């Protein structure tokens, strides 16, 4: 062939007749398929890219926008050939692999023949383009029954073991030993509930001699509400769940958490998985009277959303939102990277760009918004606002340029560019996972009696239909996720990609069998869990030597794996008896809440630092598997974070109390609680030595308790929540006066009948709110500032439920009138604001804000300073920060209102709900070094919650070290 073309390009010869049968026969045999499959999708009468139509001889010879494309006399010089040979741009076929040389030679020969057509070609529908081989790809096939192999008979507990043993036999591997009972119990509990077993559960199980003890234990674990939180958390990873918009403003979706609660509820109730999926796509249409089904649509609303977009971006943004949905359904539900077809046909899987647009068309009128819905938990009242999605609801707000929330038409966008609209599309399904005779979307139209439901219902029906729709793939993908959940590795190791580029199953028959079991048992996920957990594959011991690649792949030996972020967090709280078992509810932001990690607010720009450190997903895309990194910053968090320190200190104090300061007893008990086993004698001795040594250090260096002292030079007053400084009513713990010095008048409650409270003990503080009045300083002369320098340092905390606007201290005279002056410190959300102002000179001034630093539920030391008309604000957190701003004019703070603690001005709104333990005030500007000294002193203050008795500190160190052990952090 090559010779022929070389010859015909080089010499003039008589040419065959274009109408010759040889030419048309050649067309039929060797050319029509190339054109049909590679060219005419873009070059047909309705879509003539480059002005070229390749479906007929007339179209071909007419050429394109840039002229003729075939040159019969010199096929080699034809534009068409130059483009497909990539000698000239645009390289054809566009964005696709180059044609094989043989195809190019055939095209040349055909041009030489005069490019005859035996018939006009018709542009294929996307689904028609599929060839049989695509539908027979292992993951796209219909489900088929699998023969359970005859293997591992003497060992197998259920068919899973037979599938596994069969491959072991082939690889020459023998079944390993079974794990010990204490190991099994710990494994099951960490795996299914994310926390170690209680010591009671251990002894109960070890004393249970019933042959069904393990099966009963498995059932019990799966029946525990903690199961829904654990497996539900995995699902939330898959559906990129978060509670904020993402992007610049990252607004909170405070009512998004109902979707999280729906997931937990559905998992615990073992809602059939097909219905679980259908509800997330179209619960509002399919079960109109069911509030749970409505909450399920929170799935569609959970993706990122840009709140601040330019006018020209509004439509592109809408396509981005639809892309997020298509992508998440693709990767998350179907293991199919549908999103790859946004700009061009999928390069590896048979998903066309048109199918992509037909798919997103299904969702193009669904928008997200908040609706009043019956909550899952009856304690939350009759109705709550919940973030959901659907048609015809009030769209969720944007800050700027809202534009339309949706567009009537969905366009096929060339290269995904909203400026390159080609044609509008109708809803469609993905052909390759649909039976050939069901690719027409209308066949999926869903009716509810007479009424025809929306296109989302149709898609939901399609996605879970095992006969003709995507059901088989849906079942395989979720069966693999369940397997991965228990073994840390999937049968397919790319859980979000079951396509051509994804991994092939290590045990195809096992996966097929599990998928079949799932469908057969009414899509019960718990049925799959039970099968796996009661298999001997699950109960085998971990290998002591590092496994070979083959052993890893064949699940020979139980895989050792690090706990994920949530399990580490929950375990720390659980073994120390501090974990709240409360289900559901609004999200929390601090470890001090003692809630499970799943209940932390997930703000896309501020992921929980501890969880992020241990590889929780970024929530921007579906996450099928969390990576497990090992980095020193994890060790630093376990050793030095206040959160972990607090947990251990509280636990040590309480357990020493319970054990009457008997250290041996305490060590024994702690050891078993943390590691689910008793220590050996050697371990016990080591532990006792350790506690003794720490105790010595803490006893001999009491100065460590206050390493640095406060700056006293030029101090006006220093207040500390202590017996000495606080005068309380004798009957109650309410504050009558707070004073740091006898020579100064005291701060007293503005309304003596509504005083703040004094809390004694290690965490001593003045507690303000909810209905207390501020403490005020009657003598203005002592706190007069004028235009002079001043500095205050305050140590305070706003509790989790303390609200988002808390006024801490100040001398501002604002009382609703137009003229006011003063200075103040205020908390607004995650921001702190320090300001001086005087409306009689130059009007209100700019504020000095530190953003994104403040967090509720923990202590902060904050210093505000005015020095030479420069304001600065220092906040001492894990990321210490100083902000500064010049006053536009020297501000004279000239009012006569009192200095207030727990309020900033003369207006009663926004008063503090929170605790203040220290307040220092100076009539001068402290240096940076002095500010640091005060901050260090207050951080190490004797009232710091982590400073305990030497024994408590020594035991806390011991507990903390146990939590750093691999035995604690790894599941095996």
């Amino acid at each position, binding site marked *: 062939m090559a010779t022929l073309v070389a010859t015909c390009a080089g010499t003039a010869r008589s040419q065959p007749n274009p109408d010759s049968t040889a030419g048309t026969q050649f067309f039929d045999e060797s050319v029509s398929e190339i054109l049909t499959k590679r060219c005419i999708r873009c070059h047909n009468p309705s879509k003539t890219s480059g002005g070229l139509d390749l479906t007929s001889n007339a179209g071909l010879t007419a050429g394109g926008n840039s002229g003729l494309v075939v040159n019969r006399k010199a096929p080699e010089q034809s534009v068409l050939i130059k483009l497909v040979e990539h000698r000239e741009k645009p390289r054809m076929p566009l964005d696709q692999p180059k044609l094989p040389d043989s195809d190019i030679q055939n095209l040349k020969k055909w041009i030489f023949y005069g490019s005859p057509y035996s018939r006009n070609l018709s542009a294929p529908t996307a689904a028609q383009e599929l060839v049989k081989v695509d539908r027979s790809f292992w993951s796209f096939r219909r489900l088929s029954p699998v023969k359970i192999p005859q293997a591992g008979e003497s060992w197998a507990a259920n068919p899973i073991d037979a599938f596994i043993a069969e491959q072991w036999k082939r690889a020459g591997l023998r079944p390993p030993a079974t794990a010990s009972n204490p190991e099994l119990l710990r494994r099951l509990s960490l795996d299914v509930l994310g926390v170690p077993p209680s010591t009671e559960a251990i002894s109960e199980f070890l004393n249970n001699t019933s042959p069904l003890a393990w099966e009963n234990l498995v059932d019990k674990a799966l029946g525990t509400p903690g199961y829904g939180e654990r497996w539900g958390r995995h699902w939330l990873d898959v559906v990129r769940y978060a509670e904020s918009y993402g992007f*610049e403003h990252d607004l909170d979706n405070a009512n998004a958490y109902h979707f999280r609660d729906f997931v937990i509820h559905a998992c615990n109730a073992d809602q059939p998985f097909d219905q679980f999926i259908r509800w997330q796509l179209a619960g509002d249409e399919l079960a109109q009277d069911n509030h749970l089904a409505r909450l399920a649509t929170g799935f569609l609303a959970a993706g990122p959303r840009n709140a601040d977009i330019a006018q020209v971006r509004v439509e592109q943004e809408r396509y981005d939102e639809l892309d997020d949905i298509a992508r998440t359904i693709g990767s998350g539900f179907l293991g199919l990277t549908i999103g790859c077809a946004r700009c061009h046909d999928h390069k590896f899987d048979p998903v066309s760009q048109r199918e992509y647009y037909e798919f997103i068309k299904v969702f193009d009128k669904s928008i997200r918004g908040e609706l009043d819905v019956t909550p899952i938990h009856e304690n939350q009242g009759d109705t709550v606002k919940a973030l959901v999605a659907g048609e015809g609801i009030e769209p969720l707000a944007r800050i700027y340029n809202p534009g339309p929330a949706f567009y009537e038409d969905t366009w096929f966008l060339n290269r995904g560019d909203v400026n390159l609209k080609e044609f509008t599309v109708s809803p469609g399904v993905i052909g390759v996972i649909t039976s050939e005779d069901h690719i027409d979307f209308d066949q999926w139209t869903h009716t509810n009696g007479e009424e025809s439901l929306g296109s989302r219902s149709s898609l939901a029906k399609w996605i879970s239909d095992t006969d003709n729709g995507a059901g088989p793939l849906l079942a395989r993908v979720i069966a693999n996720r369940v397997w991965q959940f228990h073994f840390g590795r999937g049968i397919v190791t*790319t859980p979000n990609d079951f396509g051509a580029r994804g991994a092939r199953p290590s045990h195809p028959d096992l996966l097929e069998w599990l998928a079949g079991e799932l469908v057969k048992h009414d899509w019960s996920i718990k049925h799959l869990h039970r099968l796996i957990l009661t298999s001997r594959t699950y109960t085998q011991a971990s290998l002591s030597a590092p496994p070979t690649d083959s052993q890893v792949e064949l699940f020979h030996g139980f895989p050792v794996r690090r706990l994920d972020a949530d399990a580490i967090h929950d375990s720390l709280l659980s073994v120390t008896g501090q974990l709240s078992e409360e289900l559901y509810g609004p999200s929390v932001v601090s470890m001090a809440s003692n809630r499970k990690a799943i209940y932390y607010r997930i703000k896309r720009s501020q992921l929980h630092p501890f969880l992020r450190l241990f590889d929780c997903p970024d929530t921007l895309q579906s996450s099928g598997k969390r990576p*497990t990194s090992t980095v020193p*910053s994890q060790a630093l968090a376990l050793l030095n974070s206040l959160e972990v320190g607090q947990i251990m200190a509280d636990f040590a104090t309480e357990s020493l109390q319970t054990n009457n300061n008997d250290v041996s007893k305490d060590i024994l008990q702690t050891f078993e609680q943390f590691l689910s086993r008793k220590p050996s004698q050697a371990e016990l001795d080591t532990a006792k030595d350790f506690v003794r040594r720490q105790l010595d250090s803490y006893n001999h260096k009491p100065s460590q308790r206050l390493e640095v002292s406060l700056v006293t030079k030029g101090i006006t007053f220093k207040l500390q929540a202590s017996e000495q400084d606080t005068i309380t009513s004798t009957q109650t713990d309410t504050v009558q006066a707070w004073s740091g010095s006898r020579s100064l008048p005291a701060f007293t409650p503005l309304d003596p009948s509504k005083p703040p409270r004094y809390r004694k003990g290690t965490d001593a503080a003045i507690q303000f709110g909810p209905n207390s009045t501020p403490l005020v300083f009657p003598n203005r002369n002592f706190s007069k500032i004028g235009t002079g320098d001043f500095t205050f340092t305050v140590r305070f905390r706003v509790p989790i439920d303390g609200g988002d606007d808390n006024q801490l201290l100040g001398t501002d005279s604002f009382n609703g009138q137009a003229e006011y002056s003063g200075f103040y410190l205020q908390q607004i959300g995650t921001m702190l604001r320090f300001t001086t102002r005087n409306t009689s000179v130059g009007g209100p001034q700019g504020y000095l804000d530190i*953003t994104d630093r403040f967090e509720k539920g923990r202590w902060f030391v904050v210093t505000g300073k005015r020095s030479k008309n420069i304001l600065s604000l220092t906040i001492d957190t*894990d990321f210490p920060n100083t902000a500064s701003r010049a006053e536009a004019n020297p501000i004279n703070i000239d009012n006569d209102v009192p200095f207030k603690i727990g309020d900033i001005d003369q207006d009663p709104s926004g008063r503090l709900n929170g605790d203040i333990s220290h307040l220092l005030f100076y009539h001068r500007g402290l240096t940076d070094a002095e500010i640091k000294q005060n901050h260090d002193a207050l951080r190490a203050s004797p009232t710091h919650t982590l400073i305990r008795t030497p024994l408590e500190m020594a035991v806390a160190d011991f507990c903390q070290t146990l939590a750093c052990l691999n035995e604690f952090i790894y599941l095996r």
Partner: protein
Amino acid sequence: MLALQDLLRANQPSTESARHRHRPHFPAKAKSVIWLFMHGAPSQIDTWDYKPELRKRDGQTYDGFDQSTGFFAGLGGPIMKSPFNFSQHGETSTWVSEIYPQLSQHVDKLAMIHSCYAKENNHAPAQIEMNTGMARLGFPSVGSWITYGLGTANQNLPGFIVMYDAKGRGTPKSRSISWGSGFLPGMYQGTPLSNSGAPINHLRPLPGRSNLTQQSQLDLLRTLSSSNDERTPKRPELDARIKSFELAYRMQIAAPEAFELNGETVDTHRLYGTDNPQCGPFAKQALISRRLIERGVRFVQLFSGGFNNEDSWDGHTNLDKNHRQFAGETDQPIAALLTDLEQRGLLDSTLVVCCGEFGRLPLVQTGGTGRDHNPLAFTTWMAGGGAKSGARYGSTDELGLRAAENPVSINDLHATILHLMGLDHEQLTFRHEGRDIRLTDVEGVVVNDIVA
């Protein structure tokens, strides 16, 4: 205090998914990057891209201007000349705005690309585009890619460190996405710091605790780990975990030294202007950057300007005041950084990159004396690290509205930066959802003209 060099360790943190070899594809001069990000988008025509035509046509209407170019559609007013004087500097006779009195002394070192353009016209998406190559969420930042590609040369410090606005005016608008690792393992994400106090999370022992009490905790950890030896499966990952605690302990001792500026000479402090109230905070960050690079940190990114418009280079209403302020905060420190790196022989191995997320319009924004966003043109300069000193590449049209000659996309810019680091942007890939994804997606051409 232990010398950091003593603590260098060759072992890489282990993760299941990262099996990249941490070495360049071809030899390159640059070993590390300092990226100076002018947050809010400086105006190219008021800084580095001199356009005398603006003065001639000041106040005239720009016929045919597409009002949807900027952020505020319809607010594009008449042509506005630069409020600043320009003069020529160096052997290259480069025109520089008067707001850079010190940096203008370094123009011969700089390789400038005048023809950069972005796709996005609003801050957050454009910053995400500039930092990850994509305006969508979920993709790794340049620093993450480079750390992934080359690893870090100092195990006691994070490989990728970020310092955002030195004056406490908040994060960039794109927030942590600008230094996120996207689908790359979390260990490659940037570590954000501030210029004061403890630089890294959890670096200080808990209140009441000391290095001594922690040392005995580590002893206990080691003893209990080996006492249970016969029960514990042997896995490299488990050994790495125990090592990570020891590493953490060393980091705790070693890292603060990297951030301590007291050891720097008075001359160095003076050079950077650390005591100057206006530029001091950024100067300290610039000086810390040099110290980090010296200690083997791979990628340092500094942001000038904070979250709110008026707290950044976003001169919508009064460009004169805005740009004078922010140039005043950065001019001396950046000039000092270049001098300092050169004097210490570090400039050859350190690539310094300076840009914003896009440029600004040659028109006045109606209602003030500022300029609206302009994604069609902006200037990026690079220095050191194999960038060609004095190179000038590409140009804008006569008003500086649009990249005219040799336009350079953000993909091109990224391809060039990777190239200077010895990384082939087509080879540096990570398998995600079945695709081998690149920083430059499917595009990007190395700007060879600025490569020395």
